């Protein structure tokens, strides 16, 4: 990025016009960031904020200060995520703007760190952005974010600047967590501020200040910690909510699978046993009732009973098979998918292809069962109704979700009519699939029309929405 050339003459006491200040700052920004469409939009927005701040001030000097601070804050927050910053470039721009506006790094840093836009970012992105802006404005050699993980261990989650963790940093952080100061604490060149949630420290922002600049760093670190508190609280709420949902989903899935197995072991066998008794009764009737007419009537009643039992058996089997999937309980998902496809190939003349991509690790049993059921249900539907020549299965593990699709080139179906008919007949199949996927926080869609083709698609989120910083010991780019 090129260095700016414009400077505001701060030597004279006469106040400059807002237009003049802002024009100079505008020139600095454009020179530093080169031509990008996003820069034009952001600068335009920054100008509007500056104008509003200027209009709100009581005196001209105050108006100029507020306008300049608003402009710088808006620019940094607006382009931060759009520009591939290097640490030195951001620092250089901050210093240039501080010099051009005459406001100093602390004033601009405080304003920029307080921008409301930061609170709207996803927690992990917000933490990175805060630390980046802190590193740009603070006269520091290193900034770091230390947090307490799920097991109570204190870890450096993110570090900017320097090739290694600053000596004494961990000990200082642990002391701050144990006895949090009111705002910040200083130990030598180290400055730390706790991030509080309900008055309890949950993280620490730590800065290795350049010697003599500890106080400046303290002001900025305190502001950064203050702004991070609501973000971490939001993260906790999201994780807690997701965990509760996940636990409930898992528990429900286990109950459903157990119910499916219990139906198999219990009622289904009882029904079969009762049918055996009825069958034996039929044989005995033949000998016990000699007259033809009463014998025929009695045997007819017993045949009616057998038919009822048969219908009951079908219903129980249908529920049992839709509730549980013993396959995946015995094998990891990729193996279970391959087995399911192999069984299908042995029984069908359709060509079946499967493609898996990404990682399928880290899935809960419920998620694995759901994915397997989407595939087996899709195959079953293709075999039973579609007249397809080819079925394509795809399971793709992305960083945040798993996408499963089953596509067949068959004759398709009228979706509304078919699903309504299935619902009224109590056939769970695809409808049960939708429920199962939604229970896990995912989405299930069926695309089909008369004439075909048909595609079932399920998207399941990976449920762990935790902050996942990269290796803090690698040199960081923003």
């Amino acid at each position, binding site marked *: 990025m090129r260095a700016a050339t414009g400077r505001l003459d701060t030597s004279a006491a006469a106040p400059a016009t807002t237009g003049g200040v802002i024009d100079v700052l505008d020139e600095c920004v454009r020179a530093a960031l080169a031509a990008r469409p996003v820069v034009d939009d952001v600068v335009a927005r920054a100008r509007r904020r500056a104008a509003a701040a200027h209009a709100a001030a009581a005196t001209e000097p105050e108006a100029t200060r507020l306008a300049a601070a608003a402009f710088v804050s808006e620019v940094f927050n607006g382009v931060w995520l759009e520009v591939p910053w290097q640490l030195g470039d951001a620092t250089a721009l901050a210093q240039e703007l501080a010099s051009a506006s005459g406001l100093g790094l602390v004033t601009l840093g405080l304003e920029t760190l307080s921008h409301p836009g930061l609170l709207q970012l996803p927690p992990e992105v917000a933490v990175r952005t805060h630390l980046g802006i802190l590193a740009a404005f603070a006269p520091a050699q290193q900034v770091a974010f230390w947090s307490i993980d799920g097991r109570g261990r204190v870890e450096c989650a993110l570090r900017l600047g320097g090739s290694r963790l600053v000596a004494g940093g961990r000990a200082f952080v642990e002391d701050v967590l144990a006895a949090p100061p009111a705002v910040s604490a200083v130990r030598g060149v180290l400055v730390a501020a706790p991030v509080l949630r309900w008055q309890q420290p949950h993280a620490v922002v730590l800065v290795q200040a350049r010697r003599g600049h500890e106080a400046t760093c303290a002001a900025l670190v305190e502001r950064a910690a203050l702004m991070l508190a609501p973000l971490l609280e939001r993260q906790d709420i999201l994780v807690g909510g997701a965990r509760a949902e996940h636990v409930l989903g898992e528990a429900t899935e286990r109950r459903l699978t157990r119910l499916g197995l219990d139906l198999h072991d219990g009622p289904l066998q009882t029904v079969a046993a009762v049918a*055996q008794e009825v069958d034996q009764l039929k044989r005995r009737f033949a000998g016990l009732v000699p007259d033809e007419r009463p014998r025929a009537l009695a045997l*007819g009643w017993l*045949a009616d009973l057998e038919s009822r039992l048969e219908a009951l058996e079908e219903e129980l089997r249908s529920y049992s098979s839709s509730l549980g999937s013993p396959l995946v309980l015995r094998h990891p998902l990729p193996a279970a998918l391959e087995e399911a496809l192999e069984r299908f190939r042995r029984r069908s003349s359709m060509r079946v292809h499967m493609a898996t991509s990404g990682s399928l690790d880290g899935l809960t049993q419920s998620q694995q069962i759901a994915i397997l059921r989407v595939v087996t249900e899709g195959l079953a539907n293709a075999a039973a109704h579609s007249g397809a020549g080819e079925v394509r299965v795809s399971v793709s593990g992305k960083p945040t979700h798993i996408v499963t699709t089953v596509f067949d080139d068959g004759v398709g179906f009228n979706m509304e009519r078919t699903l309504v008919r299935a619902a009224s007949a109590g056939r769970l199949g695809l409808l049960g699939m939708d429920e199962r996927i939604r229970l896990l926080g995912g989405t299930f869609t069926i695309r089909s029309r008369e004439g075909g083709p048909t595609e079932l698609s399920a998207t399941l989120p990976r449920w762990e929405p935790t902050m996942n910083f990269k290796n803090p010991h690698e040199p960081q780019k923003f």
Partner: protein
Amino acid sequence: MRLKIVIADDHPMMLAGIARALEESPDIEVVGTTTSGSRVLPLVSRNRPDIALLDLHMPGRDGIECLKLIRERHPEVKCVMLSASQDPDDIESAFAAGASAYIVKRVQPTDIASALRQVFEGTVFHPMDVATAPATDRCSEIGLTAREKTVLEGVARGLSTKAISSELWVTEQTVKFHLGNIYRKLGVANRAGALRYAFDNRLVDVA
């Protein structure tokens, strides 16, 4: 010489029913029964059956484990698996472990005695189905039960649901139940469709 059978099934009612059904055959003798998988091997060792009829899922030791142990220690004893499960995975596991047959516990009566005789004689045995009586008429080929055929004949004679129910001494609801099954098996939507199908395919005599 009677065929000696040991039966293991953790469902007492099922166990009693199977034993009773087999004992009605004069050429079959049930020499031991148990509801626990861990009792199977001692029972087989003591009673030396010709065939062990084993439930797939049992407490203590499941059917496959019992099967493997019997094959190892008493290779002369044939093993037949019995289960409510129709899961192809279960069926293939059973055959892979050395089962001579796999019988699914269904409402439709299975001629277990015939199945066991065929296993003992070593004749070809379809792994998924037990041999049932071959279809003797068109109705059986389609899958209609004798009762359903009776109801269909009533329809063909022009009888109303009420009239059929009176003739068979059953409720109208029972007749409607059978009609629903008939329509489903014939792939028709109503009484007229069933009649047309029945006459076109000579399921009933045209008087």
